[in-house]
């Protein structure tokens, strides 16, 4: 089979993996060696679906001995199959990298024979890249559930980031839809990688360079949203506990796209993109805005409001803490004002040392006034024409979304859930 055909098959097979980041590790260039990584990462292209392309994201092989219900590559599917040779894939990566197409390689694979054999094959590719081509770019590898600890260590020192997909937000769904990955096949290696990173980092006998050699960019995971009955409440609590107990760098969500027909899977043709978007917004609140998961969602209202973002929702439910006086409140409170992001909060902190800020100034500091105006005062006064009325604010903030919904334009791009949205009641 020609390389071009192999690439088509193995890129297509890998495209449902969400993670495509090249961040989290700074490795300076070295004379005579190709490549470097920057801690913020660089996106080199954006595909037609608007997702970033930063790594060459492929499977080593889409031959798989597992039969997970949701997966394109399941054993039972009659599809074209291909496998890269290690040298082929290494050369492809280098060729792309030298043309500034990519930051590095994202390597996953179907389970060839057994997890250990698969991981060995993956190690071989990365070994060629690192030790023959002295490639200093970014490498993200998937750990195959069930791989032995020795092989995880071997893989861990070669790559920058490792990930294991948790796939479903509950053990029950996992057992039903991916029986070969159930049990502690995912959780155990996750814990092993976490301990490896910690031990390596704390080992005082190692030089500082070697100390950060084991999975320096940390680990991540992903779960499918909308293929199983779990609520947003369960999903967000699970990801919060993953951040806490496994020190993950990222938890990715992937809106379920029906590929296989299977009685166990929902038959909806609508991709829950809006739900995925709201989950990411909540995820950002936890990672960058100092929110606790219990502040974002509770058991009585287990789904995020599709009409309004979780930060606005929180603000409306805690309206007693508003309006916030922009010129006085501490940084932590600035972060909680809808329409104020991390950058604009920092800019406000700097700018207000010089003068008392007015509404015009806030616009210059890139505050989104459309949302912020309802929740702030500048020097004690509200923005012109704004009334401080929680119910009215909710209507105003959701006006556009409701209009679109009324006209039925929300289908597709902004698909709604099947059930009526349950909004946390505004407590005044």
């Amino acid at each position, binding site marked *: 089979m020609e390389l071009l055909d192999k690439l088509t098959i193995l890129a297509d097979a890998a495209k449902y993996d969400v993670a495509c980041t090249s961040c989290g590790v700074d490795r300076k260039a070295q004379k005579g060696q190709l490549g470097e990584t920057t801690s913020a990462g660089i996106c080199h292209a954006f*595909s037609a679906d608007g997702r970033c392309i930063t790594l060459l994201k492929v499977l080593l092989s889409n031959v798989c001995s597992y039969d997970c219900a949701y997966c394109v590559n399941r054993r039972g599917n009659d599809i074209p199959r291909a496998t890269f040779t290690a040298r082929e894939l290494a050369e492809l990566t280098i060729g792309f990298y030298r043309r500034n197409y990519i930051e590095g390689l994202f390597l996953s694979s179907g389970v060839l024979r057994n997890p250990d054999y698969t991981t060995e094959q993956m190690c071989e590719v990365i070994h060629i890249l690192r030790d023959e081509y002295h490639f200093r770019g970014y490498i993200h590898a998937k750990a195959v559930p069930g791989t032995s600890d020795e092989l995880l260590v071997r893989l861990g020192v070669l790559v920058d980031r490792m990930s294991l997909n948790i796939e479903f937000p509950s053990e029950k769904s996992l057992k039903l839809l991916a029986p070969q990955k159930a049990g502690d096949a995912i959780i155990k290696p996750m814990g092993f990688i976490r301990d490896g990173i910690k031990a390596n980092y704390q080992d005082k006998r190692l030089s500082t360079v070697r100390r950060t050699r084991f999975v320096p960019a940390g680990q991540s995971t992903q779960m499918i949203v909308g293929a199983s009955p779990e609520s947003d409440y369960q999903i967000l609590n699970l990801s919060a506990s993953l951040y806490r107990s496994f020190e993950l760098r990222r938890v990715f969500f992937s809106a379920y796209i029906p590929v296989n027909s299977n009685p166990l899977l929902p038959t909806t043709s609508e991709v829950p993109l809006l739900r995925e978007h709201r989950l990411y917004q909540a995820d950002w609140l936890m990672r960058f805005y100092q929110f606790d998961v219990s502040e974002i969602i509770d058991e009585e209202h287990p789904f995020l409001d599709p009409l309004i973002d979780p930060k606005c929702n929180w603000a409306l439910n805690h309206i007693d803490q508003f309006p916030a006086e922009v010129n006085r409140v501490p940084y932590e409170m600035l972060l909680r004002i809808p329409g104020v992001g991390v950058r604009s909060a920092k800019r406000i902190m700097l700018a207000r040392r010089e003068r008392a800020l007015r509404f015009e100034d806030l616009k210059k500091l890139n505050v989104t006034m459309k949302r912020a105006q309802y929740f702030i005062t500048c020097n004690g006064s509200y923005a012109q024409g704004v009334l401080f009325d929680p119910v009215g604010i909710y209507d105003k903030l959701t006006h556009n979304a409701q209009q679109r919904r009324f006209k039925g334009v929300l289908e597709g791009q902004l698909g709604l859930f099947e059930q009526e949205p349950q909004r946390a009641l505004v407590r005044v």
Partner: protein
Amino acid sequence: MTGFSYLYDGTLEGMLSAVFVAFQRKEYPENIIVEQDLQESLFCGYIPTLTNLEHAERVQSGILNTLGVRAYDDVKHAFLSDEPSKGGVILRYLQYTMKRGSRACTHLAAPAVHDFEELCSRVSKEAHYMLQFVRFAQLSNGVFFSQIAPKANVVPLIMDHFAARFNIQPFMIYDAVHGLTGVFDTERWWLVDARELQLPAHSLQEDEFQALWQTFFDTIAIEERKNPTCQRNFMPKRFWNNMCEQVPPQLRNLRPKTKTPTQAIQVKNRLLA
């Protein structure tokens, strides 16, 4: 109207000399304009300034001592902008900050500082776009060549980045808009003024790599999630001309012969239904 502007020769030294003149004479010109770009207006006077290396160096060390290295880097960034108002923006920034000290650089709500920050960030953003979207093609003599069309004169800002990561390969970045080429020979990089280039043909492997990349780019997108607005927001269309993956499929000579797994399943599902 009694406004007036300074004229300078278009070099950084010239600009800094003009700044020196403004400080010396305690004048507040509206703008500092490149002499060749001048389009005279009835309501504005023009005062030519002379480039004086000594004056330029005094301004440079003044900025470094009072405002610090970062502020001087910002001034250099802002100078690379294509906007005609840049001279005035830089001058007002320096007039505002130099008498107040380095802390004034964070007075983000002050118009002088705000306008300057905006100018800088637009240049930095353009430079970052280049780090993302520069595409090299290997020529038959082994040199990796890239053509770009940025909105600011950013080649000097991006050469360090590429020279570090691609230190094993000679490369050139040709800015067709500003007529400037960055050249790297695996040891050091320099800038060449070039309006026209004569290039050797692509190397033997080049077309195959481009076809592979185009295929990968098309395949990795998920049909059901298609979102062209989002794509254009992150990757504005003005860059597409110089990106090989944007060549429409009908114009490519190499295309995959196989179906993708997703297509194969879709065909089967349709047959079943």
